[in-house]
């Protein structure tokens, strides 16, 4: 790419080339140069000019400001422009690299995507193939099934035909057999006739009855001749029996009907009574049309009442319609009642619930007031019953009080003892203060006396005072866990302090300060440091020396207070 662009550039810049043959030479040389060996240096001392021109040309072709003019000498290369250009180029290069990387990434991504897509496409192709095969199989099966259906249909048709044929055969056979049977029967009858004839004609063994003497009829009557009259009589008797049968049947039916009517009547009466009792409420309900209907109903009732007694067709019709009407009304009424009942039930339940809740609340209140009253009653005027009732409570209370009394007593004793010790301590303290005051007075006096002539002893004095202060602090801290001991040690300290304060010599004071700077134990400049410190200490402390002592006193009293707290 860059080469081709270069070539294009060469062509485009041909007029320029003509103007500067040197540059042309160098440019024509440059590809050669490149082609021959990339490793050979581009710029040598001899072709600096060419190189410069080439580069400047290149750069200008790339759209940068020109670095070097041909007219200018090679030494007059504008460094700023070159650097800018280089910077630009580097920037460009970086950008290019960046974009390249991005492109590569993109390419990687896309290639992987392509792979994936290829994979899916192959898979889908396989699926397609599979489904195609399946489809083919199914089609084949369908075809087979259709064939089967066709064959079955033909079979069915055949069967149907067969059935038809067989039915025809059966029918024909049946008719044939019937015919045969009839023929046979006729023949049989003919034979019977013939046999009968023969038997009648036969003489030797005839039917015979041999009775000793004939007997009379069961009813004792004589037999009668057969005449038309007897026939008529038989007919008459037959109809008589039939008639009597129908008569009895009718009577039974009438009886049954009467029973049913009675039941109907009663039912009707009940219904009427129920419905008529309902009617006023209906009227009250402002259902005017209903009222009208009810009126018409009334009419029906009245008419039907009579109709029950009537037995004609119209009456029956009327009766049935009225009954039906009433029945419908009754049914609807009952249904309505049912629904109302359910509704009412729900309402009443709710009401009941509310009422009961109210009751409950009232009862609770009542109970509470009762309890209050009982309490009031029981505490002030425990005449006899209350005393009896609370006797056990009293006993318990007494017991408890006694116990409390005991503990309080014990506490009191402890307090007493403590107070005693405190007073003792206070006395001692006052004594000590007295002594201290005296000490101070003496010390002040002493200092006053030694103020100007003995300046050297100041440091030792100061260290002594400080050490004493430190000692007073340390045991107190260590003995915080054992208060009883602390008191003694404190007291000891007080005594001890009071003693060395007066008796301690300057020479003995030296080892004590080494207690303070614990970290500087191994250091060789210990003394100097100590002195420094102490000097600083002294410098800061000298105006407030009096205050310091006061503080130590306060501290003492404070430690005592603390001891007391811990004991409690």
């Amino acid at each position: 790419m860059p080469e081709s662009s270069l070539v294009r550039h060469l062509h485009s810049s041909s007029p320029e080339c003509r103007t500067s043959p040197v540059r042309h030479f160098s440019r024509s040389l440059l590809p050669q140069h490149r082609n021959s060996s990339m490793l050979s240096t581009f710029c040598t001392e001899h072709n600096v000019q060419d190189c410069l021109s080439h580069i400047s040309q290149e750069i200008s072709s790339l759209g940068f400001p020109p670095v070097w003019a041909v007219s200018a000498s090679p030494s007059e290369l504008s460094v700023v422009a070159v650097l800018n250009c280089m910077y630009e180029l580097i920037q460009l290069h970086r950008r290019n690299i960046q974009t390249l990387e991005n492109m590569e990434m993109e390419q990687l991504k896309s290639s992987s995507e392509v792979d994936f897509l290829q994979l899916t496409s192959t898979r889908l192709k396989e699926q397609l193939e599979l489904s195609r095969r399946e489809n083919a199989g199914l089609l084949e099966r369908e075809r087979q099934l259709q064939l089967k259906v066709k064959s079955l249909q033909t079979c069915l048709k055949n069967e149907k035909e067969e059935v038809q044929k067989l039915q025809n055969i059966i029918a024909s056979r049946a008719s044939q057999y019937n015919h045969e049977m009839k023929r046979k029967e006729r023949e049989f009858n003919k034979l019977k006739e013939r046999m009968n004839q023969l038997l009648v004609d036969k003489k030797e063994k005839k039917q015979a009855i041999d009775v000793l003497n004939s007997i009379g009829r069961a009813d004792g009557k004589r037999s009668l001749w057969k005449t038309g009259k007897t026939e008529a009589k038989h007919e008459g008797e037959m109809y008589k029996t039939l008639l009597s049968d129908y008569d009895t049947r009718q009577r039974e039916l009438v009886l049954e009907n009467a029973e049913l009517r009675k039941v109907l009547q009663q039912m009707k009466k009940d219904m009427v009574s129920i419905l008529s009792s309902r009617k006023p409420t209906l009227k009250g309900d402002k259902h005017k049309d209903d009222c009208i209907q009810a009126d018409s109903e009334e009419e029906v009732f009245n008419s039907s009442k009579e109709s029950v007694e009537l037995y004609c067709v119209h009456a029956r019709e009327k009766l049935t319609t009225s009954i039906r009407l009433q029945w419908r009304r009754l049914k609807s009424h009952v249904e309505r009642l049912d629904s109302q009942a359910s509704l009412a039930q729900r309402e009443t339940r709710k009401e009941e619930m509310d009422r009961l809740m109210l009751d409950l609340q009232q009862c609770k209140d009542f109970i509470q007031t009762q309890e209050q009253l009982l309490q009031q009653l029981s505490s002030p005027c425990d005449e006899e019953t209350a005393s009896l009732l609370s006797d056990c409570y009293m006993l318990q209370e007494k017991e408890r009080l006694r116990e409390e009394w005991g503990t309080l007593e014990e506490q009191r004793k402890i307090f007493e003892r403590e107070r005693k010790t405190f007073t003792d301590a206070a006395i001692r303290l006052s004594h000590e203060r007295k002594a201290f005051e005296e000490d101070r007075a003496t010390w002040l006096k002493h200092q006053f006396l030694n103020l100007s002539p003995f300046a050297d002893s100041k440091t030792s004095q100061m260290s002594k005072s400080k050490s004493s202060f430190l000692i007073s602090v340390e045991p107190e801290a260590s003995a915080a866990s054992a208060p009883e001991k602390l008191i003694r040690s404190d007291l000891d300290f007080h005594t001890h302090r009071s003693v060395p304060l007066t008796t301690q010599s300057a020479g003995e004071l030296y080892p004590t300060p080494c207690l303070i700077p614990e970290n500087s134990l191994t250091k060789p400049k210990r003394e100097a440091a100590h002195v420094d410190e102490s000097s600083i200490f002294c410098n800061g402390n000298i105006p407030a020396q009096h205050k310091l002592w006061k503080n130590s006193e306060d501290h003492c009293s404070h430690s005592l207070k603390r001891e007391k707290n811990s004991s409690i």
Partner: protein
Amino acid sequence: MNFSELFKQSNQLCKVSPDGKYLATCVQYRLVIRDVSTLQILQLYTCLDQITHMEWASDSLFILCAMYKRGLVQVWSLEQPDWHCKIDEGSIGLVSSRWSPDGRHILNTTEFHLRITVWSLCTKAVSYIKYPKACQKGTDFSRDGCYMALAERRDCKDYVSVFVCDDWHLLRHFETETQDLAGLEWSPNGCVLAVWDSCLEYKVLLYSLDGRLLSTYSAYEWSLGVKSVTWSPSSQFLAIGSYDEKVRILNHITWKKIAQFDHPATINNAKAVVYKEVERRTAVGSDDLSLHNITIGTTLFNTQSKYEICPLPVQIPVVKPDPDRANPKIGVSTLAFSSDSRYLATKNDNMASVVWIWDMQKMNLEAVLEQTSAVRCFQWDPRRPRLALCTANTKLYLWSPAGCVSVQVPTEGGFQVQSLSWHGSGDSLILLGKEQLCLCFMDTDQEDKAHLQSQDGKQTESQEMDPVSTSEHHPPCTSKRP
């Protein structure tokens, strides 16, 4: 309950006279008349040959004995032992002989159903009725004895003739709409005649006395039809049992079906009580195993049985009939109403060991009796709702609404009850074996004292001859309804 000693009989010919006083039994060619109450022989008649049929006249004065093979009928008079009458049908032959309701005429059916000969004992007159049809039940007399219905076959058509029995006057003659008439039966009030077709077609026709067709009923087509038909004693119901194992009840007003009773193999009708007969060997103690006991006691080998009430549902043993054979053993073949028309007892042929009892008021199943063997015969007490049945073993079974009883018949020689018939008063039962018969007396008024009395040995010979058996068969195992 007491049992008489065993009497001989042949051809199961043993009948109580209509007035209930006498018991006639045939032993080979002899006719023995006994007093029912005392069982003493009153008369002994000797016929010319072995008797094949015997029948009392309606007034209990005459008995006819038919010898079909010889074509002979002999009539005996109870009042006049010397009186005799012999009817010879000659070479034309005889297949059936019966009294007319007045007891003065004898109707003989000749061989091949050529004709029916009516012999009058009053006038010695003879009359013929031609073309009688050979079928299940071709003739029937109305209950009051006034009319006779006769099925006829002429020119391949069925006819019904109604005769006045008084003088054999043909009152009505009409063609019926049947293919092949199988039977006819008068309603008990004598006003309706039920006519049914052969089993090939389900068809029941109802005719009025004057020959009008009242109604036709057909439950289904193309299948074997009616197997049995019975009127209720009140003439109110007509029960039709058919090959589809159902009983259909028609009413007497509209002649339409009002109920249908199925005979399912599994009973799960909660209202029905199922009594199952359970057999149990008698536990014989070692003391009883004496030689005496073994020699005399066939009862030793008898099993005791009792009824148990089965919890529902109950599976009933069903025999599948062979469909290729004619007259398959399936369907309701026997129907019987109790005397008060309250109950109907039925038997389905493919459940031969089961009797079904239906309540006709509630129109549902009342009880089911499942026996251990096939039921041979059952009959209602003519006075009470009480059913007696036998299953060709040594036991007699009784059902009443109160419960079910199985009674061992205390007789020797393995007397097996093949059939039974009630005495008209309902006080006694005649139990028929193969060659013997036994009377069973019910103490209906003091049923609770039944076994006490039987142990007293009031009059039963069985106790006199077999004292051991009394303890064996009493008390009868009763299972009352819960």
